[in-house]
């Protein structure tokens, strides 16, 4: 549908206002929520993810597009009655204890949101106890941890060990990332997955959810 393609293009261009206009127009035209989201907003973010992965665009462009996408989502969210087919899964994410870097984590959150996931962002300096609490409260499919400092990476293992102790480890999949984190480290600490950037994070989460 032409209007959905236009929504996607406006997300790609990062034109927040245009996205809002088009989403409202699509609603007037009685296009389904599912279609507006999947074939409009998320399709746009999909292209952004691809381009980011190929290094054609960088952090600012992704953020601008993500904001445009979110503006559209804000209009649609109150209208969602049945989230099936729209929300693909729930993810709790945070930067580990002692670490206050959040730009990368925010980018990952937005891309995941742009891929149809519900995100519960715990912010920065998140202790293992806070992760535990959030899992109990929100019952997510996946927990994501971010660390940008070599000295806070060990907190990822501490958190995983705490989840084990609390008997929560089998209820969630754990994924990790951040510039100093490697796939080997992720394996070593017993995480279920690692992604080197935000669009790989989407692929990773998609593959984990589809196996569920």
């Amino acid at each position, binding site marked *: 549908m032409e209007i959905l393609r236009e929504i996607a293009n406006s997300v790609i261009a990062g034109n927040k206002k245009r996205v809002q206009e088009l989403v409202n127009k699509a609603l007037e035209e009685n296009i389904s929520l599912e279609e507006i989201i999947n074939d409009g907003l998320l399709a746009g973010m999909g292209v952004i993810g691809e381009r980011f992965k190929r290094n054609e*665009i*960088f952090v*600012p462009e992704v953020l601008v597009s993500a904001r445009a996408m979110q503006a559209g989502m804000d209009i649609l969210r109150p209208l969602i009655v049945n989230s099936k087919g729209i929300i693909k899964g729930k993810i709790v994410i945070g930067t580990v204890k*002692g670490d*206050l870097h*959040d730009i990368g984590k925010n980018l990952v959150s937005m891309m995941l949101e742009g891929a149809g996931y519900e995100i519960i962002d715990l912010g920065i300096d998140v202790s293992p106890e806070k992760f535990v609490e959030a899992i109990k409260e929100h019952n997510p499919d996946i927990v994501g941890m971010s660390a940008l400092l*070599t*000295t806070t990476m060990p907190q990822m293992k501490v958190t995983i060990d705490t989840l084990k102790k609390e008997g929560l480890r089998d209820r969630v999949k754990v994924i990790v990332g951040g510039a100093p984190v490697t796939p080997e480290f992720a394996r070593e600490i017993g995480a279920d997955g690692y992604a080197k950037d935000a669009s790989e994070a989407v692929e990773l989460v998609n593959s984990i959810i589809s196996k569920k």
Partner: protein
Amino acid sequence: MIKIKILPENVLLEVEIGSNLLNVFREKGIDIESDCGGKGWCGKCKVRLAKGKVTELNDVEKRMLKNEEINRNIRLACQLFLIEDNIEVEVMNKNKKIEIVTNFLKSREGKKNPLVRLKPFKLEPPSLKDQRSDLERLSSIDTNLHFEDLRLLRNLPHLLREYNFEGKLVIFKDEIIDIRDRNFKSIYGVAFDIGTTTIVGYLLDMNDLREVDIISRVNPQRVYGSDVLSRISFILQNSDGVDILHKVLIRTLEEIILEFSKRNHINLDDIYAISIAGNSVMTHIFLGISPEYISYSPFSPAFRDSLVISSREIFSILPKAKLYIFPLVSGYIGGDIVAGIIATDLLREKGNILFIDIGTNGEIVLKVEDRLYSCATAAGPAFEGGNISCGMIASQGAIDHVWLKDGKVFYSVIGGGEEKGITGSGLLDAISVMLELGILDSKGRINDEEFYIGKIKITQRDIREFQLAKSAIRAGIEVLMRNASIGYDKIDKIYIAGAFGNYIDKENALKIKLLPPISKDNIFLVGNSSGMGAKLVLLDKEIIEKAKEISKKIEYIELSSNSEFNKYFVEFMYF
């Protein structure tokens, strides 16, 4: 003999006909930048020929100078020879780095106040009528002096009698730290700048107050990681980690001291003062204190105040000297920055000044009126060539400059010869050239995937890494300016410190928006200001008080919890 006038100071010189201009400058002590030492690849020794005739433009000059410069009669001092009378030249780039220390010394002339000095004494020997103790006798020379060293007290009775109660006191600040015979003359001090990457030692003659020698070494801790956090990780993973890093550092510092002693034929025993300027992590490790708690939130250091300690606590080869350690401001603003503020005399300078140490930690200080604001931007190692596919530090074989001439790309390599990689200043220039050629857009995208400088390829990932580093610094600058409530037009000067700072092309730094828009004439490269501060404290003990004042006065702005920072960080990723 012919006459030559140096502008704008109007210095008139008489020189041999046929002299090389750079040599004239050297012989007559006229200051000019000449990074390559006259080999013709740095292009720093620019002069403007205001009057008269010299040898024709040669090939080196044609290659190094832009057309616009040639039109303005700009020449390279190292390439031209004086063949006619009545010449006038203007020096374009002066060695800002050296000026600072010499200016400082000039301003201090007459009030010599070194940290360590000799004071002759002649005492009445004890008699039955005067049974005062040896120490009382000594203390009566000057009641402002005090005495703390048990080791010296153990020797004092013998020494006084051996010297017939006449000799020289060695005084560190106000403490008597040794006594020597009356003919003893030369005492020395060593200033250390302990950088994460490089260590520089300076040997100072404390009698004549002059620099005698300088040695620089790679920080041996580098094998444990290139940035401070990797070193701390090593400490966290090894129970004796602090000890290991402390020992390799001290060994290298001792090697430098021994080399000074050998090269300059001086006695280790005659070195009485050592000053240490380093970032907070290096200073902790130097003292053998674990920097662990600096490495994660809330980043608290073990101490902040300056310290004076006995050198034997650290150096086995120097039992009698004293160490002065610069105070720290926070976990990420260290003694090196305090020393840099001292060296550039930031507090006394008029106007609003931005002081930037462009390196992995990216410390920034903004002086507005009499307030000092600071932050650490964690730019990462891109400026030093780290995380760049063909990146390397500024050493032999590194491309350090890239420029366009008639639409063609030219570049220079440190040490001449073939290019082995590119360093931060080269990458900065390359980006500016790529923007100019339209190969790179302002968002940082390379349209033509293949861009080579000589054999060195600049990749899209390199540009992205550079964008992060550049933007972190710029965002830090913006946050400080907001905190001080000033706009671009209120910045009078920018001082750029650090190794990278020596090579940076100011115009390109402005063009890619690393620096805020101010006239390039108000940007000064101040070289190793940390090392200079370390030297200055040896030359003037009052600096101890000044450093204390600065470390108390500086306001540290934590960027981690600063939402403005994130906004600017994203904004200034673009060129």
